[in-house]
């Protein structure tokens, strides 16, 4: 088991030029490795986002039946970052992505500490933008041994290329 998010397969990923991405709409772009979510990481996330007893009133969570074993939904959303950094094949030297939008984010199944998750990412839309190319992906975060995923999200990134700067 690795602590490294979603493997480093991205180092060897094939490149799809942003200008050519439209030809791949409808294709699955990548499926990540399974990632385990240990308590140490979840607690680090809570500290970083001020969702802990030192910085916030956590009383409401004490009555929650799933309690502190539950992995925060927005941590799952945030894990789309390394999933894409390490696996998304769209890009070219010098290009970078700006976080543009999220749509239809849902958390169908709860995730608990120690569960394993992975991201299946499909390219759903590519659109021209005055500052680059808008790339939209449908992301399903699967939960091991669960029929329902723990996260679905449509994520749009504005890919700025060297030419667009």
């Amino acid at each position, binding site marked *: 088991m690795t*602590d*490294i*998010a*979603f493997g*480093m397969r*991205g*180092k060897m990923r094939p490149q799809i030029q942003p200008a050519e991405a439209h030809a791949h709409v409808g294709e699955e772009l990548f499926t990540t490795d399974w990632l385990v979510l240990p308590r140490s*990481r*979840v607690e*680090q*996330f809570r*500290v*970083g*986002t*001020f*969702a802990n007893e030192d*910085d*916030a*009133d*956590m009383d*409401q*969570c004490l*009555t*929650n*039946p799933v309690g502190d074993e539950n992995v*925060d*939904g*927005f*941590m799952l*959303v*945030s*894990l*789309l*970052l*390394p999933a894409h*950094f*390490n696996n*998304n094949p769209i*890009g070219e030297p*010098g*290009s*970078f*992505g*700006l*976080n*543009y*939008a*999220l*749509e*239809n*984010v*849902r*958390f169908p199944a709860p995730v608990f500490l120690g569960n394993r998750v992975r991201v299946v990412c499909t390219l759903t839309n590519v659109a021209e933008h005055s500052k680059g190319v808008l790339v939209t992906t449908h992301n399903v975060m699967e939960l091991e041994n669960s029929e329902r995923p723990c996260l679905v*999200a449509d994520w749009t990134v504005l890919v*700025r290329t*060297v030419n667009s700067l």
Partner: protein
Amino acid sequence: MTTEDYKWSLSENRRTVSLNRVSSLVGQEIFVTNWRQVDRLHLDQFHWSVDEVEETSDMSANAKFPRGEENIDGFMLLSLVTSAFFNNYPIGGENVIAWNYGLDRVRFPATTYLEDRIRLCVSLTEAVQKDSGLLMTNHVVVEIEDKERPAMVADFLVMLTNLEK
């Protein structure tokens, strides 16, 4: 600058409105937070917790991002919504628990940096009774001081369940 300038303050009105009085709040602004900054330590904790660091992820796609080191990620802003709600959300009470149900129409209009002061303005746009509880649509705007465009806008869906029922 004190540490309080880097935290969400605690509202006395948090969780004082019971579920049967929610309808009177639909269409209203329900809370505005204090102005605050995000410090480097917490931003780094966030990066580490979700592997957004060179040690574990391929960050080369980020290398050309202008002032990337001082940028506050969109998903960090999103994750700060949780602790802001813990400290300010006026609806709730004993035995009422809140579930992160989902997000719609999330946008990041302005890039946000460590020196920026931000605050949350939240309006309740809809409250719908479902089998499992009361589904609240909260329109969230993360404002940046002295800037016209906000850092983030989002419709945050929260399901409130009364455990006594």
